[in-house]
C-alpha cells in the first residue's frame, strides 16, 4: 500500500479538528471536488456527484478499515485511491460538457472548440476586414515618420497600408494588439473546461489559414511575417488570457456559491461507522 499523503492545511490556516476525523477528511475532499464546479454544473448534478463520491469514499474507507487500518488513515487512503479532486472534477466536467446541447458546428468539432472558434474567428475576421479596408482604401495622408513615401515603402512595402491616424488604421492597430487578449478572455470565461487547449487548437488553425490567405494577397515575406506575428503574439496572448480568465472565473464561482447540500432525499443520513465491514 502506498503511504497516505500528508493532511492538507486548511486555507484558513492550520489544520482544524474536522480534518482529523474520517468524515472530516471525506467532507473536505467533497468540498474541494464540488466547489470549482459551482456555477457550471447544475446544482442537481453537483449534488449527485457529491453524494456518489461520498458514498464511494465511505465504502473505500470501510474496506481499508476492514484490512486493519486506523479510521483516519483509512479515510486518507480512500481519498488518495479516489484520485486528486481537481483532476476528477475536471474529467467529470469535460464529460458533462461533451453531452450538452449543441449546434451543427459544435457537434462536428466539439462544444469547447466551437466556442473558442467563435471568439478567435471573430477577432481574426475583424482584423482581416480592417486590413483589407486599409489596403483597398489607403489614406491620402499617411504618417511616414519624417521619411519620404518612397523611403517609408522600403519599410512597409505595398500593399500593406502605411500608418496613419484614420479611424480604420486606429481600429486595425487596436484589434491587432487587443484582439487576442480580448478573445482569449472571452474564451476562458465561456469555455468551462480546458479553455487553453481549445484556444491553442483553434488559433493554430486560424494562423495557418491567415498565413495561406496572406500568401495569396501579400508578398511572400509579408505573408510569413503576418503568420509569425500571429504565432509570436496572438497565440500566447490569447492562450494566456484564456488561462487567466478561466482561473478568475473559477475563483469567482467558488466565492459566490456555497458548497451544495445533498439535494436528493435521504442525504441527511449519517455516514456509516468506518469500522463496519464493507
Amino acid at each position, binding site marked *: 500500500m502506498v503511504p497516505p499523503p500528508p493532511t492538507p492545511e486548511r486555507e484558513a490556516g492550520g489544520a482544524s479538528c474536522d480534518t482529523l476525523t474520517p468524515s472530516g477528511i471525506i467532507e473536505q475532499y467533497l468540498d474541494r471536488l464540488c466547489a470549482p464546479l459551482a456555477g457550471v454544473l447544475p446544482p442537481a448534478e453537483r449534488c*449527485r*456527484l457529491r*453524494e*456518489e*463520491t*461520498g*458514498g*464511494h469514499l*465511505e*465504502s*473505500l474507507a470501510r*474496506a481499508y478499515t476492514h484490512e486493519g487500518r486506523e479510521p483516519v488513515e483509512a479515510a486518507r487512503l480512500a481519498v488518495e*485511491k*479516489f*484520485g*486528486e*479532486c481537481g*483532476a*476528477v472534477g475536471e*474529467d*467529470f466536467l*469535460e*464529460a*458533462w460538457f*461533451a*453531452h450538452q446541447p449543441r449546434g451543427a458546428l459544435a457537434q462536428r468539432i466539439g462544444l469547447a472548440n466551437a466556442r473558442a472558434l467563435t471568439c478567435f474567428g471573430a477577432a481574426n475576421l475583424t482584423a482581416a476586414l480592417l486590413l483589407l479596408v486599409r489596403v483597398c482604401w489607403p489614406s491620402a495622408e499617411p504618417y511616414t515618420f519624417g521619411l519620404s513615401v518612397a523611403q517609408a515603402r522600403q519599410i512597409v512595402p505595398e500593399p500593406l497600408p502605411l500608418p496613419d491616424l484614420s479611424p480604420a488604421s486606429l481600429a486595425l492597430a487596436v484589434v491587432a494588439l487587443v484582439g487576442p487578449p480580448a478573445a482569449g478572455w472571452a474564451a476562458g470565461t465561456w469555455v468551462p473546461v480546458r479553455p487553453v487547449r481549445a484556444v491553442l487548437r483553434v488559433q493554430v488553425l486560424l494562423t495557418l489559414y491567415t498565413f495561406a490567405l496572406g500568401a495569396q494577397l501579400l508578398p511572400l515575406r509579408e505573408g510569413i511575417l503576418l503568420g509569425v506575428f500571429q504565432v509570436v503574439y496572438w497565440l500566447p496572448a490569447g492562450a494566456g488570457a484564456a488561462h487567466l480568465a478561466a482561473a478568475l472565473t473559477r475563483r469567482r464561482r467558488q466565492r459566490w456559491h456555497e458548497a451544495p447540500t445533498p439535494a*436528493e432525499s*435521504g*442525504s441527511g*443520513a*449519517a*455516514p*456509516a461507522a468506518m469500522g463496519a465491514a464493507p
Partner: protein
Amino acid sequence: MAEEKGLLRNNATTLVLAVLKDGARHGYDIAREVERRSEDTLTFKHGTLYPVLHSLEKDGLIVSEWERADGERPRRVYRLTDRGRAELERCVATWRTFARAMNRVIAGRSSGEQAA
C-alpha cells in the same frame, strides 16, 4: 505505466458494460469488480469511473437510480439497457478481433502460415 493507463482509458466503456452485464451495481462495486476480475492488473483511480458512467448514461447505454440503505448514504445503482447490451457485444467483438490480430503479429505468423 502510461501505455497501460492509455489502454485502460480507451477500454473503460467495455470494462464498465461487461461488469454491469451480470447485474446492477453501484460505482464502488463496479471499480472493485474490475480490479478483482483482472486480479489487480487493472488498477486505476476510482474517481475516473464517474465521468465514464455519466457519459454512458447520457448515451443511453446504462440507467441509474438511487438506492437507500439504513444508516448509509444513498447509493446510485447502475444497470445495463438493451442498447448497452448491444454496444457491449460490439465492443467485445472489436476487442477480440484486435487481440487476435495483435497476437498474430507478435507471434510473427499469419493465419495461413499457422494452418500450414
